[in-house]
C-alpha cells in the first residue's frame, strides 16, 4: 500500500472519480457497517430474558425421590420459570439503574421468586421468597389421631392397649382387637420452609457503605421422633411388669418462626477497611409441648402410679441471639497486612417451663433464664517477606460462656422413680494459633509449612451441688503440615502433602454428668476426687469415662496422620485430567473407646472441552473408611453393689469390639453439546451412579453364646446399602431467535437396604414398641418434561 500511495499522482479527473466511488460505495457500506456493529453490540449489551412455561409428569409417588425437589407425587406439575432484567445500565450510556425479576420452579413446592432493583454504585434493594418442602416419608403409619404439624395426638376411644405377644407375627398388636389395626393410617410427613427476605444496601460515599438484610423463615409440618413412656405389659397380658421404654414414633411439630437481621456498616480506605455490624436471630416455637396418648396403657385398665394416660415432651424453646461484630484489615505496606475481628454475642432463652404435667415434683423456677455469652477474637498477620517467601500468623479465640444458673430439679423419670437432676450449663473456649510459611523454591515449585496449636477448655459455672461437669476439662492439639506443589511442565501440576496431629485430652474422674441422678451421688472422701460408688447404684452418675481407661472419642488423646497427593494434567486446551487421593489414620491412646480410624479416597476425573460450550466429562470417586471401638460390658465391682452400673476408676471386664466399615463409590458422566443443527439444538446429559455401604461387626469373645439366634449380640449386621442411579437428558431446540422448545427426561432409582426400619414393622417391634411400618423409600421414578421458552433482549 505504501508503494501505491507514493506513486499516486492525482489529477482532477482521478479525484472526481475517486470521490464518486467513495460516495457510491463507502457511504452505504459505512452505514451498513455502523448499523450492524451497533446492533451486534446492543444485542450483546442487553441481558437475555426468558419466560418458560410447560409441564412435567412424575411416574410414581415417592417422598424420597421428591425429598427436596417438589416432585413427590405422581402426576403432572407445571413448569414455570422467569428471568427478566432491565434498566438503563444496560444501554451503555451513563445509566446505572438495573432491575430484575426471577422465578424458578414456580409450579412446585420448591418455588422461589425474587426481585431486585438497584442504582449501581449508589443503592440496591431486593426481596425474595423461597419455599422448600422437605418430604421425609410417605410410609409412616400411626394409630394416633391428630394432624401432621399439630402437637396433640390421641388414640381412638376403642383402641384398647398394646399387649405384647411372644409370636413376632402378632407382637405389639392385640390380635383380639381389630380396632387397633384399623386405627393405623398413613401420614405424609415433612416440613415446609418458607423464607421471605429483604435486603438493601446504600453506598454513602466511595469509602462508606451500609448493608441490611432481613430474613423470615416460617416452618411448618413435622419431623419424626420417638417418645418413650412408662408402659408395655409383658406377654402374660395385663399382669406383667410395666417398663419405662414404651416407644412410640411421633410427628414432632416444627411450628417455627425465625427472624434474622443483619446490619453492617463498611468502610474502605486506601490501606484499610473496617466493618461493624449487628446480627440478630429470633427463634419462636408455636408450641411449648407435644402431648400424646400412651398406646401402651389401657384406657380402661388400672395403671400403676407414674404410668400416664398422656405423655408430654418438650419442644424447642424460643431463643434469641444478639451479636455485635467488628472486623477489619490494614495494609502496612503492599506486602504486609493485618486483619482481624471481634464478636460479642448474647444468646438468651427464657421460655416458660411446662406446668400441669404429672411427672414434675419440684421445679425451682418457672423458666430457665438461660444466658450464653459468645466471644470471638481473631487476628491474622500476613507478610510477603520476599518474592519467594510468604509468612502468615493467626490467633483465634472462641468462647461459649454459659451463664445460666444451675439448680436442682426433682421429678419422676420414665420408670416412675424419683430423680434428682442438676442442670450443668456447659461452657467451652477454644484458642488457636496458626503459623504458615509458603516458599517458592523455583519457578513452578513451592513448599508450604504450617503449624497449628489448638487448646480447648470446658467447664460449668457454679454447678448447684458443686461437682465438676465435664469428663475432659481440657484438650490440646498440635498439628504440623508440609505441602509441596510443583508445576512439572506447562501441562502437568503435582502436589503432595503430609500432616501430623497430636491431641492430648485430659480426663477428670471426679466429674458428674448432666444426666447423672444426684440422688445416686456419694461425695468423694476428703482429699479424694474419685466418686465413691453408691451401695445401690454404683456411680451411674457418670456417662462417658466410667471405666478406667475409657475416653469419649471427641476428647480422647489421638495421633493423626494425613497424606494427600494429586496430579493435574492439562493435556491440551481441551483435555484436562485429574487424579487425587487422601489417606488419613487416627490412633487413639485410650484403652477403651474408639481405638483407631482410617479413611482413604481416590478421585479420578477428566474433562474434554472441545470448544467453549461443548464438553464431555467423567469422574469416579472411591472412598473407604474404618473405625474400631473397644468396650467393656461389665466391671470388676462386686455383684450387689450396682454391678449393672459402671464405675469410675474401676477396671472393665468382658471386653467386646465393634468395627464400622464404609465403602462409597461414585461414578458420573456428563456432556453438553451446543451448536447442533445450525446452532439450533442443544443437548445435555448427566449420568451418575453411587453405591454406599456401611457395615457394623461386633465381636464378643467373652460370651460363647453371643452368636446364638436367640441373642445375636455378636456378628455382622446386614449392610446399610444405598444405590442411586440418575440419568438426566435434556434438549433445547430453537424454533427461531426468540422461541425455544425444551424437552427433558429424568430417571432415578434408589435401592435402599437398611435394617433401621426392621424394628418398626408390624409384628417385628420389641415388646414395647409401637410399629410404624415405615420403609426406607426405595423407588424407580421417571420424569418427562416439555416446555416452551420465550427469550428476548
Amino acid at each position, binding site marked *: 500500500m505504501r508503494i501505491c500511495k507514493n506513486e499516486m499522482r492525482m489529477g482532477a479527473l482521478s479525484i472526481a472519480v475517486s470521490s464518486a466511488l467513495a460516495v457510491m460505495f*463507502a457511504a452505504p457500506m459505512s452505514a451498513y457497517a*455502523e448499523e450492524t*456493529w451497533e446492533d*451486534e*453490540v446492543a444485542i*450483546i449489551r*442487553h*441481558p437475555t430474558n426468558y419466560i418458560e412455561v410447560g409441564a412435567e409428569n412424575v411416574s410414581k409417588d415417592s417422598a424420597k425421590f421428591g425429598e427436596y425437589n417438589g416432585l413427590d407425587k405422581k402426576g403432572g406439575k407445571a413448569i414455570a420459570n422467569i428471568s427478566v432484567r432491565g434498566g438503563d445500565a444496560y444501554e*451503555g450510556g451513563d445509566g446505572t439503574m438495573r432491575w430484575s425479576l426471577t422465578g424458578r420452579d414456580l409450579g412446585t413446592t*420448591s418455588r422461589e421468586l425474587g426481585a431486585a432493583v438497584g442504582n*449501581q454504585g449508589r443503592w440496591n434493594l431486593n426481596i425474595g421468597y423461597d419455599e*422448600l418442602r422437605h418430604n421425609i416419608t410417605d410410609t409412616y403409619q400411626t394409630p394416633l389421631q391428630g394432624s401432621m404439624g399439630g402437637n396433640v395426638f390421641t388414640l381412638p376411644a376403642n383402641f384398647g392397649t398394646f399387649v405384647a405377644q411372644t409370636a413376632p407375627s402378632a407382637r405389639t398388636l392385640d390380635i383380639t382387637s381389630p380396632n387397633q389395626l384399623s386405627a393405623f393410617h398413613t401420614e405424609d410427613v415433612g416440613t415446609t420452609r418458607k423464607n421471605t427476605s429483604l435486603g438493601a444496601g446504600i453506598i454513602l460515599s466511595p469509602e462508606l457503605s451500609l448493608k441490611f438484610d432481613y430474613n423470615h*423463615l416460617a416452618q411448618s409440618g413435622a419431623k419424626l421422633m420417638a417418645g*418413650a413412656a412408662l408402659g408395655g405389659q409383658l406377654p402374660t397380658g395385663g399382669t406383667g411388669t410395666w417398663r419405662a421404654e414404651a*416407644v412410640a414414633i411421633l410427628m414432632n411439630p416444627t411450628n417455627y418462626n425465625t427472624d434474622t437481621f443483619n446490619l453492617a456498616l463498611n468502610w474502605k480506605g486506601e490501606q484499610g477497611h473496617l466493618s461493624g455490624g449487628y446480627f440478630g436471630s429470633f427463634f419462636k416455637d408455636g408450641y411449648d409441648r407435644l402431648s400424646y396418648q400412651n398406646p401402651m396403657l389401657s384406657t380402661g385398665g388400672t395403671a400403676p402410679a407414674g404410668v400416664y394416660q398422656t405423655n*408430654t415432651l*418438650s419442644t424447642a*424453646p424460643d431463643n434469641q441471639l444478639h451479636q455485635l461484630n467488628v*472486623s477489619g484489615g490494614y495494609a502496612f505496606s503492599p506486602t504486609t497486612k493485618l*486483619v482481624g475481628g471481634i464478636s460479642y454475642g448474647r444468646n438468651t*432463652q427464657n421460655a416458660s*417451663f*411446662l406446668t400441669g404435667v404429672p411427672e*414434675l415434683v419440684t421445679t425451682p423456677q418457672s423458666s430457665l433464664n438461660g444466658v450464653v455469652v*459468645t466471644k470471638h477474637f481473631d487476628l*491474622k498477620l500476613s507478610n510477603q517477606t520476599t518474592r519467594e517467601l510468604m509468612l502468615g500468623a493467626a490467633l483465634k479465640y*472462641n468462647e*461459649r460462656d454459659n451463664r445460666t444458673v444451675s439448680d436442682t430439679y426433682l*421429678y419422676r423419670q*420414665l420408670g416412675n422413680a424419683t430423680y434428682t*437432676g442438676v*442442670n450443668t450449663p*456447659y461452657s*467451652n473456649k477454644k484458642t488457636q494459633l496458626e503459623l504458615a510459611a509458603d516458599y517458592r523454591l523455583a519457578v513452578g515449585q513451592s513448599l508450604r509449612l504450617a503449624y497449628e496449636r489448638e487448646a480447648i477448655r470446658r467447664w460449668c459455672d457454679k454447678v448447684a451441688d458443686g461437682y465438676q461437669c*465435664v469428663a475432659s476439662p481440657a484438650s490440646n492439639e498440635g498439628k504440623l503440615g508440609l505441602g509441596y506443589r510443583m508445576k512439572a511442565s506447562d501441562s502437568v501440576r503435582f502436589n503432595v502433602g503430609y500432616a501430623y496431629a497430636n491431641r492430648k485430652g485430659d480426663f477428670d474422674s471426679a466429674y458428674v*454428668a*448432666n*444426666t447423672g441422678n444426684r440422688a445416686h451421688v456419694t461425695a468423694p472422701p476428703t482429699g479424694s476426687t474419685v466418686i465413691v460408688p453408691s451401695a445401690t447404684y454404683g456411680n*451411674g452418675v457418670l456417662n462417658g469415662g*466410667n471405666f478406667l481407661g475409657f475416653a469419649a*472419642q*471427641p476428647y480422647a488423646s489421638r495421633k493423626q496422620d494425613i497424606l494427600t497427593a494429586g496430579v493435574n494434567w492439562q493435556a491440551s*486446551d481441551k483435555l484436562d485430567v485429574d487424579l487425587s487421593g487422601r489417606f488419613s489414620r487416627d490412633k487413639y491412646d485410650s484403652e477403651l473407646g*474408639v481405638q483407631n480410624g482410617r479413611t482413604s479416597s481416590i478421585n479420578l476425573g477428566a474433562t474434554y472441552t472441545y470448544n467453549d460450550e461443548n464438553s464431555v466429562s467423567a*469422574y469416579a*470417586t472411591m472412598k473407604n473408611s474404618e*473405625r474400631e*471401638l473397644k468396650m*467393656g460390658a461389665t466391671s470388676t465391682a462386686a455383684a450387689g453393689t450396682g454391678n449393672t452400673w459402671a464405675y469410675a476408676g474401676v477396671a*472393665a471386664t468382658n471386653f*467386646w469390639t465393634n468395627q*464400622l466399615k*464404609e465403602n462409597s463409590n*461414585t461414578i458420573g458422566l456428563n456432556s453438553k453439546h451446543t451448536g447442533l443443527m445450525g446452532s439450533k439444538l442443544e443437548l445435555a446429559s448427566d449420568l451418575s451412579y453411587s453405591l*454406599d455401604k456401611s457395615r457394623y461387626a461386633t465381636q464378643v469373645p467373652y460370651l460363647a453364646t453371643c452368636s446364638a439366634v436367640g441373642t*445375636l449380640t*455378636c456378628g455382622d*449386621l446386614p449392610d446399610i446399602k444405598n444405590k442411586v442411579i440418575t440419568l438426566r437428558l435434556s434438549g433445547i431446540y430453537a424454533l427461531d431467535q426468540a422461541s425455544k422448545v425444551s424437552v427433558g427426561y429424568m430417571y432415578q432409582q434408589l435401592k435402599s437396604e437398611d435394617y*433401621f426400619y426392621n424394628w418398626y414393622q408390624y409384628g*417385628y417391634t420389641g415388646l414395647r414398641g409401637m410399629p410404624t411400618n415405615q420403609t426406607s423409600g426405595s423407588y424407580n421414578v421417571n420424569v418427562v418434561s416439555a416446555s416452551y421458552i420465550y427469550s428476548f433482549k
Partner: protein
Amino acid sequence: MKQVRQLLLSACVGMLLMSGAAFGADEPATAGDTTVAPAKAPAKDLILKGDAKCTGCHDEADEPVGRATMLELNPGVLAIATTRHGVKGDARTPTCTDCHGESKDHVGFKGKGKEKPPAPDRSFRKITETPAAERNAACLTCHKGDKRTHWEGSQHAANDVACNNCHKVHAEHDAVRDKRTQAEVCFTCHKNERADTHKVSTHPLAAGKMTCSDCHNLHGSAGPKLLKKNTLNETCFTCHAEKRGPFLWEHQPVTEDCSSCHTPHGSNITPLLKSRAPFMCSECHDGAHNSKAPYGPVAAGNQGGFVGTNPTENAGGRACMNCHSLIHGSNHPAGALLHR
C-alpha cells in the same frame, strides 16, 4: 492507458475507504498524519470506557484485509456488558486495562496472518503464565474488605486458587453465583464432597435449594473450614435455630461441635449421621444403662435372624434415641435424661 491507470487508482482509494468504513473501530489517525487522505473515524468504545484500545484492535488501516475485531473474534468477552462490571455509568467500573494491565506488548503486536499476539500483562485464561496471586491482586484492588477480609492466607489463597478459577467475569451467567449451579463449580476441586452429595442423606444441594456458600465463605473466614460464622455451631444454627438453646438439659457435644455426630455433605446414615446408634453413642458413653452393652445382628431384629422374644429397643431402629429422643437438648424440667 493513463485513464485506465487513473481508474485503477481511484478504485484503490475507494476500496481503502470502504475497508476503513467496514472496520470502523480503528485507532484514531495520529496528528499530522497525511498519508491517508480520508481520516478514519476514531475507534469506539463498545462496552467499557476506554475499551476501544482492545475491542477495536487488529484492524490495521493500511491492510486491506484486516484481522477480525474483538466483536468477531470473541463476542462472548463482550458479555461483560450484562454484568456489574459492564455498567459504564458507574464510576467504579474498571476498564479492560485495569484488570488486564496496560499490556503494551499485546497492544503493540504487529504480527500478520494467524500469528497470535503475546498474552496481556494479566491473563485470566485457564492456562496462563500470570500467577494466581497476581490475578487476585487485580480483583482485590476493588473487592477488598467485607467478605474478602480474610482472603490472604486462606485455604484457597494458599492453594493458588485464583478468582477466575471460580468466577466468569465476562459471562452473563456466572455459574458460581447461581444457586443452581454453584456446587458444580466447587466440585471441580472438591470431589469427595461431590460424591457425598450423591448419598442417601444430604442437604438439598442437588435440588438447588442450598449452596456451598450458604455455609462457607469461599473468600476466607475467621471460622473453621472457611465457614461463614466464627464457629461450626454458629453456622449450623443460622438455619437450625431451634437447636441453639441454651437448653435446661444440654447434651455437651451439641454445645461444642455439631460434627461430633453429623457430617454436613452427605451420609449413608440418615439424617447426615457419622455413625448409627447405638454404636455412635458408645463412642462416647460407657456408663449407665446399655451404652456399654454389645449389640450384633440383634439390632436388625427378626429380619436380621434374631428369633428371641424381644428384639431390643436399645439397639433397634433409633436405638438409644428411641427413649433419649431430645438428643439436642431438653427444656422439660423432667428431662435430664433427654427423654422428654
